[in-house]
């Protein structure tokens, strides 16, 4: 697997899995506006995923397009960060997961929009505009819930505590990530951590939430080592195209 294929899969799979998860909120949002917001954000993620995976397929050169990559890979072939496959849980869990991701996606897309590869830069510039809105939305809810009632504060604090151990995958620096940086078409994902930290800190301060004591980081998504949650999600997402592989609709 070339470092570039690997890198593009990570970008595409993060967006795909998050997008699929947000899709489950359709018709289940706590209020109509949030139902619409979460599914709109999900749609953006799927769109971003489509662009990255389509590019990954071309990079691989085996004739796999974005649909083939999304629907006909098995769990161990997925490269999404563990954070993105954490369960939807309640609204606060989904918001906290989205916030932790958006706080990373904004500096990521910003850095990639300066890629030496014009296609990566173009897609990233497009994604950057969308992720800025996503962060504004998820951060707004972190503050609103954290600075809300005793119950909302307690719940969102708990969501945050439960999710923070899973962010490590986002910043893994390995051969793929370092090659991206050296060759100038991508960014070493580890370098995004300070900006993510500062996004997190500012939201914590404004919302009155606390950073829990550091716990061991759970890593593995970038290596294809996933949690059980992903298998349920893939089963649901892949069943139709796998049952009717040549179907057109």
């Amino acid at each position: 697997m070339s470092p570039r294929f690997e890198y593009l899969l990570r970008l595409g799979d993060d967006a795909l899995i998050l997008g699929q998860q947000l899709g489950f909120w359709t018709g289940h949002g706590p209020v109509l506006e949030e139902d619409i917001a979460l599914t709109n954000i999900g749609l953006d993620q799927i769109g971003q995923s489509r662009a990255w995976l389509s590019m990954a397929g071309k990079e691989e050169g085996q004739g796999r397009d974005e649909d083939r990559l999304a629907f006909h890979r098995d769990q161990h072939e997925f490269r999404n960060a563990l954070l993105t496959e954490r369960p939807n849980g309640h609204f606060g869990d989904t918001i906290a997961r989205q916030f932790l991701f958006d706080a990373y996606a904004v500096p990521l897309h910003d850095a990639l929009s300066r890629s030496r590869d014009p296609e990566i830069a173009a897609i990233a510039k497009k994604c950057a505009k969308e992720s800025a809105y996503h962060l504004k939305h998820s951060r707004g809810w972190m503050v609103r819930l954290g600075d809300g009632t005793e119950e909302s504060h307690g719940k969102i604090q708990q969501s945050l505590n439960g999710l923070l151990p899973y962010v490590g995958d986002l910043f893994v620096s390995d051969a793929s990530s370092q090659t991206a940086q050296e060759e100038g078409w991508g960014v070493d994902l580890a370098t995004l951590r300070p900006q993510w930290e500062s996004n997190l800190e500012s939201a914590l301060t404004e919302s009155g939430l606390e950073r829990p004591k550091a716990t061991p980081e759970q890593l593995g998504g970038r290596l294809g080592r996933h949690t059980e949650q992903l298998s349920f999600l893939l089963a649901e997402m892949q069943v139709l195209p796998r049952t009717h592989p040549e179907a057109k609709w």
Partner: protein
Amino acid sequence: MVKRTADQWWRLLQSVPDPEIPVLNVVEMGIVREVIPDQSRVLIKITPTYMGCPAMDAISDDIQEKLREPAQQEGLSVDVELVYAPAWTTDWLTEGAQQKLEDYGIAPPGKTADKRTLQGEAPMVRCPRCKASNTEMVSLFGSTACKAHYRCNACSEPFDHFKCI
């Protein structure tokens, strides 16, 4: 048979409406980026408003449909290509489009030069119905990805605001 010029193809494209905002055509929306007729085909380059815009396939089909016959008359095929660069911005909506949007009931986007608008903090969004400026945002995400949901405090009507990106 006289070959159509690029300008003439552009004019034909003005008869293809945007599927989600039918009051605007795909040229007014700024979705059509390039029109390149050559010996064998006419190539139309389009760009998505949002990455996940579900209307892009429909737009591509509509363009094919509209141009197929005129192209055949010249012995040309029609190719529609999706491009990402440069990224679409609401600044590409034509001047007339802004007014059409407002008449249709959608508050048009501000200009991206105003950074506040770009952050979704539109300084003032005018109610498309009663023109009052006393409005408030209900949700950043409206009926489609490109719109936010607003409420007018003067006439109490809800309305869509075309987000600035």
